[in-house]
C-alpha cells in the first residue's frame, strides 16, 4: 500500500499549501513531525491518516500558523508562515476554515453567533451574513437550534456546528481534524459530501480521519503519517461507489 515518492496530483506553482522538509519538536529530543514535504493544490481533497499521536493535528496547526515549524518552510496561500508577522496572522486565518478536533466553540454565544463569527471577522454585511448563516445551519441540520448555546447541544451537534463555522466563509483552504468522529454513519456521509462540495468549488481540503471506511468510500488522495514521518502519499483513485 506504500506509494512513497509518488508525485502529488496538483504539484507545482499553483499549490495553495506547500511544506518543505518540515519538522516540529515540542519537547527537546522528540519529534512530533519529521521532515515532511507535501503540496496541496486548488480543489484538491486529501485524507490525512495515521495512528494516534502521528502528528496530524500538529501538521494542521502549523498550516494555520498556530504553531511554528522547528525546521523547514511552510507556504500557505503564497505566504511563508514562519516569517509571518503576528499582525498578518489573522488575515491569513480568515482565508482558512478549520474544524478543530475539540470543536473550540464559544460557549457564551449562540449557535447562530458561533457560525456568524467567521463572517464577522471579515466584516460581511448584516443581511448577507444572516442569509449565509441560515443556509449553512440548514445544511448541517441545526437551523432549529440556532438560538441555543453550544453547551446544550449533543456531541454530534457541536461537531456539525464546528463544521458549519469552518465552511460558512467559503475558505480557500479547509482543515478538518477528525470532523466526523462524533457523527453517525448517515450524517458522516452528508457532512463529507458537504466537504467534497467545497473541494469541487476550489477549496483545498485536508481531512484528518481514522475512519478507513470513509477513505475507501471516497477514494481520494491519502497522506499517512507514522511517528511524525510521511509514511504514504497515495494519489487520487476513483470512488468505489
Amino acid at each position, binding site marked *: 500500500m506504500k506509494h512513497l515518492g509518488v508525485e502529488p496530483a496538483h504539484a507545482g506553482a499553483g499549490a495553495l499549501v506547500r511544506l518543505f522538509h518540515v519538522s516540529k519538536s515540542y519537547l527537546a529530543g522528540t519529534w512530533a513531525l519529521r521532515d515532511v514535504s507535501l503540496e496541496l493544490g486548488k480543489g484538491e481533497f486529501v485524507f490525512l491518516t495515521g495512528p494516534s499521536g502521528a502528528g496530524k493535528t500538529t501538521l494542521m496547526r502549523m498550516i*494555520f500558523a498556530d504553531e511554528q515549524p522547528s525546521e523547514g518552510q511552510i507556504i500557505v496561500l503564497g505566504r511563508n508562515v514562519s516569517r509571518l508577522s503576528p499582525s498578518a496572522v489573522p488575515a491569513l486565518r480568515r482565508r482558512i476554515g478549520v474544524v478543530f478536533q475539540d470543536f473550540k466553540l464559544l460557549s457564551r454565544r449562540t449557535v447562530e453567533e458561533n457560525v456568524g463569527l467567521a463572517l464577522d471577522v471579515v466584516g460581511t454585511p448584516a443581511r448577507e451574513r444572516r442569509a449565509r448563516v441560515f443556509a449553512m445551519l440548514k445544511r448541517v441540520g441545526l437551523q432549529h437550534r440556532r438560538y441555543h448555546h453550544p453547551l446544550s447541544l449533543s456531541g454530534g451537534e457541536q461537531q456539525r456546528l464546528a463544521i458549519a463555522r469552518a465552511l460558512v466563509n467559503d475558505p480557500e483552504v479547509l482543515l478538518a481534524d477528525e470532523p466526523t468522529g462524533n457523527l453517525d454513519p448517515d450524517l458522516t456521509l452528508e457532512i463529507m459530501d458537504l466537504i467534497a462540495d467545497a473541494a469541487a468549488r476550489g477549496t483545498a481540503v485536508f481531512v484528518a480521519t481514522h475512519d478507513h471506511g470513509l477513505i475507501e468510500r471516497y477514494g481520494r488522495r491519502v497522506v499517512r503519517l507514522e511517528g511524525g514521518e510521511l509514511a504514504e502519499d497515495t494519489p487520487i483513485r476513483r470512488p468505489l461507489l
Partner: protein
Amino acid sequence: MSPRWLSRPRYFLRTAWSGLRESPVTGGISVVTIALCLLLVGSFALLVANMERILDRFGEEFRVSAYLEDNLTDADLARLRERVAAAPGVERVDLVTKEAALERFRASHIGRAALLDGMEDNPLPASLELVLAPEHRNADALERLAEAVDGFPGIAEFGYGADWVSGYHGAVALVRGVAMAIGAVLVLATLLIVTNTIRLAVYARRDEVSILRLVGGSRTFIAIPYLLEGAAQGLVGGLVGLALLFALFHLALPVFAGSLELLLGYVSPSFLEPRACAGLVAVGAGLGVLGSAAALGQGRLGE
C-alpha cells in the same frame, strides 16, 4: 487600509452587550469592585476637600495685632487703617476698641483671675487686627509685614504669637502632606485593584479570546467588545460608587453635625462638586477600559 469591520459598530455593541449579559458573575464582581474602590477614593477626596475648608477657616484666626496709641483721633485712625490695609499680605483689618479688648480679656482664661478688678481705668489698648491672606500665613511673610507696619505713626506695638504661626503652618503642611501620601497610596492601590479585577474577569474568559484568535479575529476586532464591556462596567461601577458615597455622606452628616457646628461654627461640610463627581465616574470608566486592555495585552492569556 481601513478594515471593513470598522464600519460595523453594531457587531461590537451587540457582542459587548451579550458579553455583559452572559457573564453576570464576572461582570457583577467587576462592577462591585470598581464601585467600592471609587467609594474609597471619593470618601477620601470628600474628607480632604472639607478639611481644606476647615483649615482655611482656622486660618482666619490667623491675626496680627497692631496695638494703638491712646491718643488717636478718628481721622488718624481711619488713615492708619487704610495704610495698614495696603500692607503686603493683609486681607482684612478689624478694629478692636479698648472696651472690646477689656471684654475679651475678662472672657479669657487668664482674665478669670481678679487681676483687673481693682483698677478703675481700662489699661488695655485698642488694636487693629490684621487678617492675613492664606498665602501669607507663615513666619517669613509675617516678619516682612511687621517691618512694613512697625514704623507707622500711631502704632505702639506690634504683636503676634510666633508659636501659633509656625504651629498653624506646620499643621497645615502636615495635614496636606499626610493627605497627599495617603491619597497617592489609595489611588495607586485602587488603580491596581480595579485593573487586576478586570484582568481576572477577562482571564476567566480566556478560552473565548483564544478561539477568536484562532478563527482569524484581529487584535482590534477581539479587543473592542472587551474594552466596551470594561467601559460599561466602569461606568456603572462609578455611578454606583458615587451613589454610595452620596448616601453615606448624608447618612453620616447628622451624626457629626453637633461636633462640627461646635468646632467650625458656620462652616458646614459640603459634598463633592458636580465636576468632581463626573470625574469620579469617568475615572471608573477609564479604569474599566484600562483593566480590559491590560488583560488583553498579556499575550495569549495563557497561564
